């Protein structure tokens, strides 16, 4: 099979439009048995539309989809699954209130096959599929008790047991620990060895270079380029994603060491204890970027929430010398601003306009009881959106019409609309494309240069390219600190794993 790999999925020239928006234009993609085919592209390039089309969520306007030697018409997700296309979305679709075996039961049997709940058989299926992946999860486990990585492994096991020929993985490593990522890659290699074709969607280039056999890049809804392995032409891959040759701007100037020791301390955290955080001390000075790294479950998000007033704690947090406000509302008034992770669910209000989202939480009942936005304020929102490069038709457009990266930029504009004193960023550039990442890093640098203290928390090592110092959290404790120019991804990972 290796010599002449059969094509398991052939997407031929599909086009999909939504009203005036052309999301996909003559996009083609072939996936061979036993290969990992990475699908790359900036936010809004059409990856999500393509995945949803293959998942049977969207029906293409023209073009055809072939599985093996058969043309398929996928009009709903059940059909896609029946044809052997399994999609593992970022938001996993296992049901947490059921057991592992029950999840197998509802997913791998269609209603026609059986009404009877054949638990014993489902358990057997589940056990075999999980064993094949080397997972220690048992069929009788409740899904709610599993970690994110275990749930993802469960999704893959379900895909295997339903005889999937193509498995599409959308940002599979976000939220995984380094160990879990290793397990995931092992599972992928197993699938590949068994002749399954994988479509791997990710923004993390290092991962892609490691696992992929081929790369297809989409840009503005069309095929931009295709690359084959060994050796990867990294520069050309990145520039084909962003469509320009400005990729260098991303590389951190890691030799530069800023001296901030004489600057005033803006944030001082002493013996902070809250959920998952068990006694943390640190300080951030004016004009300094402090990174805090921790794998999922290390307490990073809880730490961020305590600092911005969204979580109760014991210990001391002082902002500019005075005790930190205990509510988000008051923290904002003290110029402590927060960009939460997962901007779709925790940042954006989908039904509201870009302008309303940028201005959300600004203004107080007593002082500005009227909602009318003055022409002046409108101009400022316009300027903030331009500064961050929020691609839009108009500010009155609902934010949900924007791509993920542009939504995130709008949430950024909210936090930096009035100059912050302390900017707390949680996974600031996670899941966004290279261009959007650059826009946001530039904004962070602007805020830093104009005197903001910046606290940046993430479970992604790659987020810290601009940090002056990086603290490493493990199980709610600081286990190490790195300073420029001695910050490297390896060292961070090593510290967190010890």
């Amino acid at each position, binding site marked *: 099979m290796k010599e002449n790999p059969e094509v398991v999925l052939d997407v031929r020239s599909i086009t999909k439009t939504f*009203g005036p928006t052309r999301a996909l234009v003559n996009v083609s993609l072939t996936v061979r048995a036993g290969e990992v085919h990475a699908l790359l592209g900036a936010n809004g390039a059409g990856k999500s539309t393509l995945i949803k089309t293959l998942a049977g969520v969207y029906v293409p306007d023209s073009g055809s989809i072939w599985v093996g030697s058969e043309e398929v018409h996928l009009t709903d997700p059940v059909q896609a699954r029946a044809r052997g296309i399994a999609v593992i979305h970022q938001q996993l679709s296992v049901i947490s209130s059921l057991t592992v075996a029950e999840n197998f039961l509802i997913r791998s049997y269609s209603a026609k096959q059986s009404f009877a709940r054949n638990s014993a058989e489902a358990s057997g299926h589940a056990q075999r599929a999980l064993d094949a992946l080397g997972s220690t999860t048992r069929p009788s486990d409740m899904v709610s008790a599993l970690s994110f990585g275990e749930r993802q492994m469960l999704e893959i096991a379900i895909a295997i047991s339903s005889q999937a020929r193509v498995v599409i993985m959308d940002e599979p490593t976000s939220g995984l620990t380094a160990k879990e990522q290793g397990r995931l890659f092992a599972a992928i290699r197993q699938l590949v060895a068994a002749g399954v074709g994988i479509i791997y969607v990710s923004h993390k280039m290092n991962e892609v270079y490691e696992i992929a056999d081929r790369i297809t890049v989409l840009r503005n809804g069309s095929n931009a380029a295709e690359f084959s392995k060994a050796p990867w032409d990294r520069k050309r891959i990145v520039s084909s994603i962003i469509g320009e040759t400005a990729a260098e701007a991303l590389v951190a100037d890691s030799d530069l060491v800023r001296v901030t020791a004489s600057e005033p301390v803006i944030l001082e955290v002493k013996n902070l204890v809250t959920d998952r955080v068990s006694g943390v001390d640190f300080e951030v000075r004016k004009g300094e970027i402090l990174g805090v790294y921790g794998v999922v479950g290390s307490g990073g998000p809880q730490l961020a929430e305590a600092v*911005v007033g*969204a979580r109760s704690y014991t210990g001391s947090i002082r902002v500019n010398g005075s005790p930190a406000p205990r509510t*988000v*509302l008051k*923290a*904002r008034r003290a110029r402590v601003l*927060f960009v*939460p992770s997962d901007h779709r*669910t*925790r*940042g*954006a*209000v*989908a*039904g*509201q*306009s870009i*302008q*309303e989202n940028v*201005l*959300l*939480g*600004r*203004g*107080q*009942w007593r002082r*500005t*009881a*009227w*909602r*009318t*936005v003055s*022409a002046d304020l*409108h101009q400022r929102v316009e300027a903030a959106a331009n500064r961050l490069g929020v691609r839009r*038709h*108009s*500010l*009155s*457009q*609902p934010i*949900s*019409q924007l791509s993920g990266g542009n939504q995130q930029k709008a949430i950024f504009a*909210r936090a930096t609309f009035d100059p912050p004193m302390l900017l707390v960023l949680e996974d600031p550039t996670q899941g966004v494309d290279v261009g959007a990442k650059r826009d946001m890093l530039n904004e962070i640098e602007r805020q830093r240069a104009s005197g903001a203290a910046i606290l940046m928390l993430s479970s992604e090592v790659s987020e810290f390219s601009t940090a002056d110092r990086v603290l490493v959290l493990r199980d709610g404790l600081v286990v190490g600190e790195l300073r420029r120019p001695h910050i490297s991804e390896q060292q961070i990972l090593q510290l967190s794993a010890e």
Partner: protein
Amino acid sequence: MSNDLEMKAHVNTALKPLDQSTRPGLMRRAVTSRIFPLIIALAVLMIFFSIRSQYFFTVVNALNIGRQIAVVLIVALGITIVLIAGEIDLSMAGVMAVCSITAGAILQKDGANGSPINALITLIACLGIGLTFGLVNGLFTVRFRVPSFIVTLGTLSVGTGLALSYNNGEPRAIQSLAFLDIFALGQIAGIPSLLLYPVIAFVICQILLKRTLFGVQLYSVGGNAEASGLAGVPVGRVRVLALVICSVFASLAGVILSARVQSGLPNIATGIELDAIAAAVLGGTRLAGGYGTIVGTVLGAVVIGVVSNGLTLMGIPSPAQSVVKGVVIIAAVVLDRVRNKD
């Protein structure tokens, strides 16, 4: 999605300046607006009933419809605000029952003429009752995180229970002409007073939703409470205020309805929450929160009012009317969902 855009453009008139270049024409905005089908449906219903009954399309009948929907409209406006915030309030009938009993008790000693002072005292007392109910609903929903469905189901029961235990649940006639005049039977500035209060309630709601910061925050809390909270919106305060507004509106409705039926009745408004929610939902308000308009709710209430009035004029008995009303509501919401997918 594009319909949502139109709807928000409609809701947020105050958030202008919209870019002139992208602003659609009035006609286009009207046709694509979410309530457009409702306007068409209303027109069709009115033509239909006008053909079937000569009496339907008359000023007298229009006033009749107005009187019939006045009370439920006030309640519906209140529930719309709560629904936009992503909460629900079922306690209105309880609030109205307590208010009605209170009105009966306060006005008991008034003679046939009654005193306007006592009428005013009644109003203030009842608004106080509404405020109390709203604060209790808000406190338990926000502070103790009990879902508003449960809290208000509880206060509905408490309210009706209190009203029924007072005076053994016996209704009490209200004779005070001053009270009846001010709240239902008389005219103020040439307008039947019964019709004036829904208009006042409408104006208050429009100002609240379109002109105040509270209005924007109401939509944002209903749309995404977590994101709003992390952005610094006082989510709890917004929810409490929404529940308070709803209860206060219900207490006003209780006073008006007591004047209309000329008595203090403990079971004065049983089931009104369902009619009010129906009007709001018919008008495009989403039960999940984040979307809804005051104009939509008014139209929703008018459609329901026109349907029952027209059917009555056609001589269709009340149980059958109930069936038709139910079908109309479900059909309207289905139509809305089909037009605005997802």
